[in-house]
């Protein structure tokens, strides 16, 4: 029983609210530093690419956004499983909060990719395997958000979405694999991603900075969403009212 203590503590919204309050600055400051620093570094100090000119610099947003969007889904599915198995309310809140952030980042990846595609490929959009996968990921996020909205009842919404998130997580590898296969079946000769390995170390270092910055940023925004949701849900409890009257 004793080693379950931490679990119950984490499950308590009140405790989590107080704990996360202390955590916030430790996420926010490095996140902003890394993101802003990485971007400035990438935009101002990295030499232009000999093939793509300056347009490649969008990579410093594009790649982190795409990577974190993927990771966000997995986090959401994990929270969903925790909620279904242990009935942990906090997990439901995390799941619900992660969805719009993940969807926004996916959208950002799509948008930056499209903006990048225009100068590089001469078109906003191509049906490349990776791009298609990201689009489907976006749909998965949207479906989840729509399902959550459709429920009038919060608990039922959380549990239904948890089932869907897990079903989606089981499907993601299948989807990726099938889209990859679909693309290689068609083999359009004209357009391909440049091999990832060719990226120059001087370009890579700022990318690493913005990538880790994006992860921290995700964590920070997630905490903000979760905290807002906790306050909303517990608005009638004594501790929240005390909190409000203190301010």
């Amino acid at each position, binding site marked *: 029983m004793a080693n379950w203590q931490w679990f119950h503590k984490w499950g308590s919204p009140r405790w989590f609210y107080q704990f996360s309050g202390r955590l916030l600055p430790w996420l926010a400051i490095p996140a902003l530093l890394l993101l802003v620093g990485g971007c400035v570094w990438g935009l101002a100090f990295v030499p232009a690419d000999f093939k793509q000119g300056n347009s490649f610099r969008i990579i410093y947003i594009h790649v982190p956004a795409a990577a974190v969007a993927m990771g966000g889904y997995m986090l959401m599915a994990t929270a969903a499983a925790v909620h279904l198995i242990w009935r942990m309310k906090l997990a439901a809140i995390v799941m619900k909060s992660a969805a719009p952030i993940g969807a926004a980042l996916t959208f950002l990846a799509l948008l930056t990719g499209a903006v990048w595609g225009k100068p590089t490929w001469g078109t906003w*959009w191509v*049906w490349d395997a990776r791009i298609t996968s990201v689009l489907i990921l976006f749909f998965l996020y949207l479906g989840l958000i729509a399902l959550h909205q*459709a429920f009038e009842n919060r608990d039922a919404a959380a549990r239904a979405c948890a089932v869907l998130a897990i079903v989606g997580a089981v499907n993601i590898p299948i989807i990726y694999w099938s889209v990859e296969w679909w693309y290689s079946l068609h083999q*359009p000769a004209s357009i391909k991603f440049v091999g990832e390995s060719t990226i120059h170390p001087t370009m890579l270092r700022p990318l690493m900075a913005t990538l880790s910055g994006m992860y921290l940023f995700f964590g920070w925004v997630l905490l903000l969403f979760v905290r807002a949701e906790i306050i909303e849900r517990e608005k009638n409890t004594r501790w929240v009212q005390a909190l409000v009257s203190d301010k």
Partner: protein
Amino acid sequence: MGTGAVMFAVLRRDLQAALRRGSEWSNPLLFFLMVCSLFPLGIGPERQQLAVLAPGIIWVVALLASMMATDGLFRGDYDDATLEQLLLSPLPLYPLVLAKTFGHWLVSGLPLSLLSPLLATILQLPSEGLAVLMVSLLLGTAVLSFIGAIGAALTVGLRKGGLLLSLIVLPLYIPVLIFGSAAVKSAIDGMAYLPPLAVLAALLMAALALAPLAIGGALRISVDQ
């Protein structure tokens, strides 16, 4: 209370109910988006090929999205028996039905038309067609809403609406589909696109004048079973 005020009240409740659940206006949109992106997966990613098909695909899918949204137009009211209240109103049915159908277009056809340029880009539609696509969809989805409403009214008393509706309504949709996609294709090919658009506008006028009568009659029949 004048007819205008009553129409406004009907419209207002429907919009309120639609916005409160959000899904009512966002879902046809997302459906449109998703099904359009299914096609490249089924057909293949080649750009040239997609560009040729884009007007047809977008129009067919817009038609399906509009049709699926139409299914719920009177069903909710029938199930909760507010439809009875509407039919027992001492006012003429024409403006009431008109308001309901217009409200439905506002939350289904309108957002869909506004989103269409995005989809057109994804499907590699040449940019000359974008404006005409949007206009043709604005006119066309309004006609579709009115035709669909007739079907919805006829099937509302039956348990399984969805597919039956599509069977009744699809043949009537066909002229809209033909002129709508023809307008877009003409615009891309640099030909005159105004004639098909004018036909769509004429269809809309006819639907505005006649459809509410048919809808009202169909509703009375559906309730009396």
